[in-house]
């Protein structure tokens, strides 16, 4: 069955450091993969999309990589700030729909 794995443990990181999150998927061949941010009690907010033929995508302090051989995407937040504290969701597109991982919480410590 299709599975999306994100680290269930919260990532605590010092302000100014780079946070790196991992998303692994199995039994998918997504044409693209998206990353969303979700704050408690709120709906997810779209951050970045990366296509299967792209290795890397950047947006301001965010960077996403996509390795279709490893079936893995990495999400980086550089120069992290306390305002970056949230849950980050990985969402590969498969079967003509988005499927979400359970998310990875990031806590940036001032």
């Amino acid at each position, binding site marked *: 069955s299709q599975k*999306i794995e994100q680290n269930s443990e919260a990532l605590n990181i010092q302000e100014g450091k780079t946070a790196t999150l991992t998303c692994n998927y199995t039994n998918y061949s997504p*044409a*693209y993969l*998206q990353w*969303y941010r979700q704050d408690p*009690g*709120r*709906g*997810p*907010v*779209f951050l970045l*999309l990366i*296509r299967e033929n792209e290795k890397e995508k950047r947006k301001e302090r965010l960077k996403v990589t996509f390795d279709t051989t490893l079936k893995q995407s990495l999400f980086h937040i550089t120069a992290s700030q306390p305002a970056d504290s949230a849950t980050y*969701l990985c*969402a590969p597109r498969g*079967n*003509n*729909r*988005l*499927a*979400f*991982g*359970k*998310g990875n919480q990031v806590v940036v410590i001032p």
Partner: protein
Amino acid sequence: DAGVTQSPTHLIKTRGQQVTLRCSPISGHKSVSWYQQVLGQGPQFIFQYYEKEERGRGNFPDRFSARQFPNYSSELNVNALLLGDSALYLCASSHDPGRSSYEQYFGPGTRLTVT
């Protein structure tokens, strides 16, 4: 421009009852998707509608149904509520889901509690 709106914000129902949740998409968006998010989990896909037609359905029982209206707003209905239906129900709107890529814009969600 207004974002995706959902109503009600919170809802408390009793087991066995029925509930209707409403969603208005961003102006210009013709696709609406519904998701269920249980605490600690990612959103799980329930339905997608585009131009008033069902385009996709997730692995949910027939107690769940939805429809999309000519103005592209949508309703999600859940019958015979179970305790396990307690969750945050999210609505997301987007352009044509058949495009090569599409971002989904989520509403704030409806928090449903079944007692």
